[in-house]
């Protein structure tokens, strides 16, 4: 008979083997890389960015061998030429070759974007790790600072700062990064707070590892996936911001060509040539699109929270 003895809980093992949280780091990177490689569109987009970057680096070569023009050579006899064999993408109001200027402009757009990402990440990661690791009043002070930075209407800050520093590629990157680090810091802090709770950090602490070592050797690798994702998603946005600043006349100043400042005067020449508006914008669009697609692919492949 069925006695009370048998009314007891029977916990059965779940189907399949539970994969523990403490999986070896190596396999995580391999798996992520495999996932990224399997995403063909993402890889194609990434290769396009690499191609653009190569063109930017080799801009002198291209303008010498391919277009045969220099970006700042004015030729008033050949203004507003339509795209054709002599000028593949036409010329502007001063007879400068549009394609050549776009190629040189890539140096600014891509250079500033990568520089900005590097700056935002290094500052944001440091602040976020320190805030998350030490907690307490350090955390309070740093995070209020982040709140403040993120609450300033960014565009005002850009305007004032670009008046303050004569913008070149480096200062412009610094200006954009002066806002960008805030969200990175928040992200990293959140990640550090969750990693900090895990046993291995406590264990490392208990054997007396120093703070700096703990942060660099143990916290940083755990924050890295989030950083990679943030970086690859950030590039496209920063290209857009930089182009807008150039367009408003707050960024790279003429005559140095940039994709954004090539559009500054376009409005005045609408009736002469629509191409002057179309090409730089298309270039920005394609570049940002490729960065975003690649960024999404990286996120899908690397974001540990999406894994399940």
């Amino acid at each position, binding site marked *: *008979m*069925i*006695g*009370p*003895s*048998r*009314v*007891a*809980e*029977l*916990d*059965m*093992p*779940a*189907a*399949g*083997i539970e994969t523990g949280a403490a999986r070896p780091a190596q396999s995580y990177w391999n798996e992520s890389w495999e996932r990224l490689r399997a995403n063909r569109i993402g890889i194609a987009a990434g290769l396009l960015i690499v191609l653009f970057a190569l063109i930017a680096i080799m801009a002198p070569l291209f303008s010498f061998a391919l277009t045969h023009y220099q970006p700042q050579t004015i030729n008033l006899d050949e203004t507003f030429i339509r795209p054709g064999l002599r000028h593949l993408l036409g010329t502007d109001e001063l007879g400068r070759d549009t394609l050549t200027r776009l190629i040189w402009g890539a140096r600014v757009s891509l250079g500033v974007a990568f520089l900005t990402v590097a700056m935002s990440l290094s500052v944001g990661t440091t602040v976020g790790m320190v805030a998350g690791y030490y907690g307490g009043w350090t955390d309070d002070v740093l995070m209020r600072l982040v709140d403040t930075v993120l609450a300033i209407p960014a565009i005002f800050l850009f305007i004032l700062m670009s008046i303050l520093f004569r913008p070149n590629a480096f200062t412009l990157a610094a200006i954009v990064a002066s806002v960008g680090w805030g969200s990175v810091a928040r992200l990293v802090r959140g990640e550090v707070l969750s990693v900090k709770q895990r046993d291995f950090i406590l264990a490392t602490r208990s054997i007396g590892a120093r703070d700096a070592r703990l942060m660099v050797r143990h916290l940083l690798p755990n924050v890295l996936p989030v950083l990679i994702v943030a970086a690859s998603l950030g590039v496209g946005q920063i290209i857009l911001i930089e182009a807008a600043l150039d367009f408003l006349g707050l960024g790279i100043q003429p005559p140095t060509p940039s994709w954004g400042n090539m559009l500054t005067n376009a409005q005045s020449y609408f009736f002469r040539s629509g191409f002057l508006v179309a090409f730089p914008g298309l270039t920005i669009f394609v570049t940002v699109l490729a960065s975003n697609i690649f960024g999404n692919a990286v996120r899908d492949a690397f974001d540990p929270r999406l894994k399940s």
Partner: protein
Amino acid sequence: MTQPLLEVQDLHTVFSTKDGLVKAVDGVSFELNPGETLGIVGESGCGKSVTALSIMRLQRPGRIVGGKVMFKGQDMTRISEYEMREIRGREIAMIFQDPMTSLNPVYRVGWQVAEPTRLHHGWDAKRALASAVNMLGRVGIPSAAARARDYPHQFSGGMRQRVMIAMGLTTTPQVLIADEPTTALDVTIQAQILDLLRHVNREFGTATILITHNLGVVAGMCQRLMVMYAGKIVEAGPTADVFANPKHPYTWSLLRSIPRLDAERHEPLKPIEGLPPNLVDLPNGCAFHPRCVFRVERCQRDVPSLLQVGDTQRAACWVTQAGTELKGA
């Protein structure tokens, strides 16, 4: 013999996964008589929940690829979605494992309990709410009228499961399917909810299908019991007989892995060796044979069918069908 209320015949439900087709329910047949309580037992992933969901045709993204579910003279796998909706929540109600997540967090409890009668019986909001409050009281929620105005997060787990049960009962369905109704609850609350289900079964005469991985729950609740393994029923019979004299090695192992207070000495528990099978890549022959201590050569080759073994039980096992008793080891 009375006419069965619900009859499942050779039901097959599959899921397409990256690694291949998973036969979550692989030829399950059983019937449910009016007013009875039937237990379906098995490990997670054995197909017991999918069986229940398939009856309700809520198995998506899985697909029912074969078999019939006869209810009131019609095959529920063939009727239109519209007709199916008329049965769901009206004739057959279902409650789920996790009462914490099974109620919609943004609507008041009374509104949610009243929803079935409003839609199925066309009652106006006032009447439906009054009946909902009445039902909440009957399932043991104190000051039901006031609690009906609360949101789900303001209830404890046990109370939420009572709400789920009340929600199922407002339309006085003939069948109640309870999918692991107590798994997410504390032990003392579990007993209360099981009491409530017993009470509901007696008072409303609702036939109940109780799905659980907990043999103890079945022992106190169900007249009949089915044990599922890898999408198939491996043993079925009256609960008392199955417990006293299991006819399938899997059931036998399950029972031996339960701690017993009346054990003669301090015997160690005997967990089942090995892991549950991978449903994409089932072993040949009997799916249980890699973990089976009684296996014979034939088990690795041929799939046994569910046949009468002994007076009251049926089992899908070459060993017991050949007359061998399950003992020792």
